């Protein structure tokens, strides 16, 4: 089976030359869930941002094949239109734009890219009611400005709601679990699990193994210092929870 995304020797740095990613290799196949773990500052969010096309980072080496395309060649909006979805670690507030209008614009832009006409009001509203139930999104949030005045947990839930609406091919969840209580965590995980299919895939970034009790990964990777230093089955997460990261770092250094 072809992969959904294949990252080869990816290096990225800031405009001041600070190197953050130092040769990431990762392949994700349809139907898979990969977890990326690693201590704070190891480059997890940067990897997500580079895949989504954030311009703060310069790719100096390596390539990313997505669905048969050169991902790095696409603009951020085209990556999104091709089915790459990033659930942000810190979702931003967009004043003056209602959540619902934002989503509708998003859906219609994606449809236009595919040569489809705008979604009908009926179909749209049907989807909204179905998907918001999935993540138990409070009704009043739909008409508020995007993320404005949302609690931390509401913002994260809203990310999953958007993901459910957009039905991405590759979802990257950046610490969606942080700041969530156990109920919210369960709801978010339920959303992710329900959306899972043999056609799509997810990369779940977290540094707590807790989430992985609910979203069971096929493979766990450890990112440290901008590189994946270990990959293994889901039990690896438990081991990390037990022993921390230091033993792994030592392993790498003595290598």
């Amino acid at each position, binding site marked *: 089976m072809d992969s959904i995304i294949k990252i080869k020797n990816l290096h990225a740095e800031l405009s001041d030359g600070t190197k953050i990613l130092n040769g990431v290799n990762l392949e994700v196949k349809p139907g898979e869930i990969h977890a990326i773990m690693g201590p704070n500052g190891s480059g997890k969010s940067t990897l997500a941002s580079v895949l989504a096309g954030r311009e703060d980072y310069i790719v100096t080496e390596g390539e990313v094949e997505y669905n048969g395309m050169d991902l790095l060649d696409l*603009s951020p909006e085209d990556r999104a239109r091709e089915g790459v979805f990033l659930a942000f670690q810190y979702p931003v507030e967009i004043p*003056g734009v209602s959540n619902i209008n934002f989503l509708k*614009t998003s859906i219609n832009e994606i449809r236009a890219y595919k040569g489809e006409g705008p979604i009908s009001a009926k179909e749209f509203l049907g989807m909204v009611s179905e998907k918001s139930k999935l993540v138990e999104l409070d009704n009043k949030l739909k008409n508020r400005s995007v993320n404005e005045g949302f609690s931390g947990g509401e913002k994260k839930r809203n990310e999953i709601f958007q993901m459910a609406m957009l039905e991405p091919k590759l979802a990257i969840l950046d610490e969606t679990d942080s700041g969530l209580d156990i109920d919210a965590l369960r709801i978010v995980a339920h959303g992710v699990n329900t959306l899972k299919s043999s056609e799509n895939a997810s990369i779940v970034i977290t540094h707590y193994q807790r989430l992985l009790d609910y979203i069971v990964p096929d493979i766990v990777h450890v990112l440290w210092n901008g590189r994946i230093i270990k990959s293994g089955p889901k039990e690896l997460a438990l081991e990390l929870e037990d022993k921390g990261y230091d033993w792994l770092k030592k392993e790498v250094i003595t290598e």
Partner: protein
Amino acid sequence: MAYTEKELAKELENKKYEYGFVTDVESDVIKKGLNEEIVRIISEKKNEPEWLLEWRLSAFRKWEKMEEPDWAHLKYKKPNFQDLHYYAAPKTKKKLDSLDEVDPEILKTFERLGIPLEEQKALSGVAVDFVMDSVSVKTTFSAKLLELGIIFCSFSEAVQNHPDLIKKYLGKVVPPTDNFYAALNSAVFSDGSFCYIPKGVKCPMELSTYFRINEANTGQFERTLVIADEDSYVSYLEGCTAPQRDENQLHAAVVELIALDGASIKYSTVQNWYPGDENGIGGIFNFVTKRGLCEKGSKISWTQVETGSAVTWKYPSCILKGDNSEGEFYSVAVTNNYQQADTGTKMIHLGKNTKSVIISKGISAGNSSNSYRGLVQMNPGASNSRNFSQCDSLLIGDQCGAHTFPYIEVQNKSSRAEHEATTSKIGEDQLFYCNQRGIDTEKAISLIVNGYAKEVLNKLPMEFAIEAQKLLEISLEGSVG
């Protein structure tokens, strides 16, 4: 007889080049500088009655003793008033043969604004074979209005044909000595518009929609007077979404509105004068005094979309003199690059049970500066009066500035003024977030800006609202990244 704009448009379409003519007057410019002699020449050239000349002269004498104000949050090089021309006969623009001769950048803007082809030609001075020649449009239009007793003509014509109305109302709302620029305008105003709606008449169309082309040539010292007689209604539209250029850097207009008992005036402006280039070179200085007087139970509503000019100084205001009268001010002011705007309103409550609403939406981008300045004054006699003010600022990028200067004076116990203000920001993060959801940057800015300005844009006449919406997008182009 009710006559809709649509019907008028149809009729005009079928009408041939009837009244249209192009006067080939030689440009008639008098020498630079400002003194009594110049004021006399202007008045004489316009064949004005003696009293008007005296009125101008007295304004001039007062102006000479006045100082250019510097309290606004604006930085610009003060014009040398003796180095300007104060009278030029109406210029005829050089006629072009086709749109191919027009600056492609301008054409692109027209297209994006959705301005019809014929109108594009007229706006850019391409010879048009029919209809859109403003003189013929104007004539047809006026005839229809006249049936209803509505007078709508140039200010100069009104001076000749309706001198008693002019004499009765000119300077009654904005006295010649009101401020430095109003005094200057009173001394040397060139032309402008005059409108009178008789008792009980509801003007059936947006006045001035079809005059946009004409408007492009109204000079730097414009004078507008709108009188709505008892229980009448008029919606008046000034300006143009198409980019406006002018060799005169200084503009100082005066607009006076008078709403008599039970009348209602809706005055909408879209201002898109040349703002200067992206380095802040050139651009119009726009110092405007706009004020309305409300008699009993009347209402004046100002709506403005300000996107142009290098410097904007403008405070459309309402004097709520009559009991139960209402004033409204809805404003979107956009500044980009090095533009500066100091704009807002004054709501002066004099009558009992008077109400005012202020909705101001500032949008600043680039290195620009955007200030809201508002005064809400409830006088001792204005019992049971209410004001609600909402002043929002939206910043795009982090080189621009937004300032809010609200002055609220409530001088009686039964009245209340409520003020709310917010500041928000569009940064790279918001735009990337939108991009990540498949929305490109241009669309994202327009989504955010239109969401933000919606409340004001909704107050504009329908057709204009759509153009204004696009205008906001265009004005903010290149403001990020």
